[in-house]
């Protein structure tokens, strides 16, 4: 292992200690899981009821409403990601962090390297729990027995949801470094991930619609292959394109955060 990798590994180990040693981390993960389960049950329940009422054929994969609920539950992880950086600016702890790791890009990289796997795993696990809950409740005879849990659909859904959560968390981290405050991070993250794309759709113009499709909300839903989205049906482009747009936003937010971190006094 060369020096560069070793020092990054050390900084990452330190960030892992910091992440697991505050209670808010566990609260955020719990909140996200609850949002995801309740959201998935509500969305899945609605879809199944419609199928049965309209006498349509077909079944619903138990993980599909979970991916739709992910865009609401993501805010639990937005909070988690934000809390890895903005409290350091509020308390001045960022100075201690930079004393230990004075190469600034390395601090951002270390935090991202901890956040991404943790939020990916959280997405897969919470997604699994929510999928099981949807299957357990909605496969009942009352709902027409329309809900199934085919392995070949559930597994990719859970994995893509983990990736979506990881990318959203790293995006939020970038915004945290860029705004250096909790209020700023929450506002910009909410507007970027939910507010602006919905407003653009509500303008009813084709330009607004096209623009909103390229924002993380619909890009994420496309990537996860959700059939039930805030625009009605599925997002009209392939999953791979959704991933590309998600990556574009993640890279942009991270680059912005990095630029501010490098330029400004701590």
């Amino acid at each position: 292992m060369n020096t560069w990798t070793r020092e990054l590994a050390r900084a990452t180990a330190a960030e892992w200690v910091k992440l697991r040693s505050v209670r808010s981390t566990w609260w955020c993960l719990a909140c996200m899981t609850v949002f995801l389960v309740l959201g998935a049950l509500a969305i899945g329940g609605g879809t199944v009821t419609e199928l049965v009422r309209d006498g349509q054929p077909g079944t619903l994969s138990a993980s599909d409403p979970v991916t739709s609920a992910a865009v609401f539950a993501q805010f639990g992880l937005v909070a988690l990601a934000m809390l890895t950086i903005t409290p350091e600016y509020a308390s001045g702890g960022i100075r201690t962090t930079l004393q230990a790791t004075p190469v600034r890009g390395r601090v951002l990289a270390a935090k991202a390297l901890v956040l991404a796997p943790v939020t990916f795993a959280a997405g897969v696990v919470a997604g699994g729990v929510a999928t099981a809950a949807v299957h357990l409740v909605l496969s009942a005879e009352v709902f027409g027995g329309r809900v199934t849990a085919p392995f070949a659909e559930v597994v990719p859904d859970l994995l893509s949801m983990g990736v979506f959560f990881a990318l959203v968390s790293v995006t939020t981290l970038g915004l945290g470094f860029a705004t250096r405050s909790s209020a700023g991070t929450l506002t910009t993250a909410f507007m970027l991930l939910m507010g602006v794309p919905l407003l653009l759709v509500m303008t009813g113009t084709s330009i607004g619609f096209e623009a909103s499709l390229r924002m993380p909300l619909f890009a994420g839903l496309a990537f996860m292959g959700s059939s039930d989205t805030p625009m009605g049906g599925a997002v009209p482009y392939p999953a791979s394109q959704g991933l590309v747009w998600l990556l574009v936003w993640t890279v942009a937010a991270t680059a912005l955060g990095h630029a501010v971190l490098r330029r400004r006094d701590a």
Partner: protein
Amino acid sequence: MISLNGLRKRYGDRTVIDELSLDVRPGAVTGFLGPNGAGKSTTMRLILGLDRPTAGTALIGGLPYHRIRNPLRTVGALLDARALHPGRSGRAHLTALARSNGIPLRRVTEVLETVGLGKAARGRAGALSLGMSQRLGIAAALLGDPEVLMFDEPVNGLDPDGVRWVRDLMRSLADEGRTVFVSSHLMSEMQLTADHLVVIGRGRLIADAPLAEIIARGSLTAVVVRTPHADDLAVRLGAAGLRWERPGENELVVTGATVEHVGDLAHEAGIRLHELRPREASLEQAYQELTADSVEYGARRERV
């Protein structure tokens, strides 16, 4: 060794540090003094690479801070004892720091014992008193067993025992050959702890000299003489170009001279002395004279 060379820091059009050049040497406690807003904390942040200088350099052992590998093993600094996550335990805080610089985890236990914070380090750091936080901050500075130590107001919030403990700690760190750079407002404390002093005011260097020399510069430093022939001696002193005052019939207070000088003058003139002793100014008085012109946030003195 810390070396500042032409260091300058400007925020907008306000110059906070101006052409600061000095060396902080190993094996001594160097006190860093100056009125509020003089730029002490800014200087320390510049040394640690937290703020970027407008001009000049701040080097530690010849390297800028960000070029030092595993810097906590070379430089330990306590800037603000409250600058940590209130929900994290003191032990976890130190563990994260140890991990970040490849410091063995047994050091965490060791430094917690050194500062006397064993059990309290398991609870939330936010629940610690200011004095306890100060001890935790000192533990963090000692963690990497560094050559260079910087403390910004380390005795803030400590009880008298704690103050003495910090004083002894600074001394022993310097005696081990380390560089100890410590700022404080408490002059009496500095007088007891420091070997060397750096005084700044409005971002400029006012003094950089051994403690004894700075005290000797104070106008209250003088030689007190008691003699039955005060008139004769006063004439002699005047002829030698020395300034004196005569607080009593048989007493003279001579400024700007050593005891030896005054004693020799009296001896040459055959003047009998009943007392000859130096009167030392306190650091506080010497400091106030040095910084009288550069107090930024001083209370305005009403003219009576």
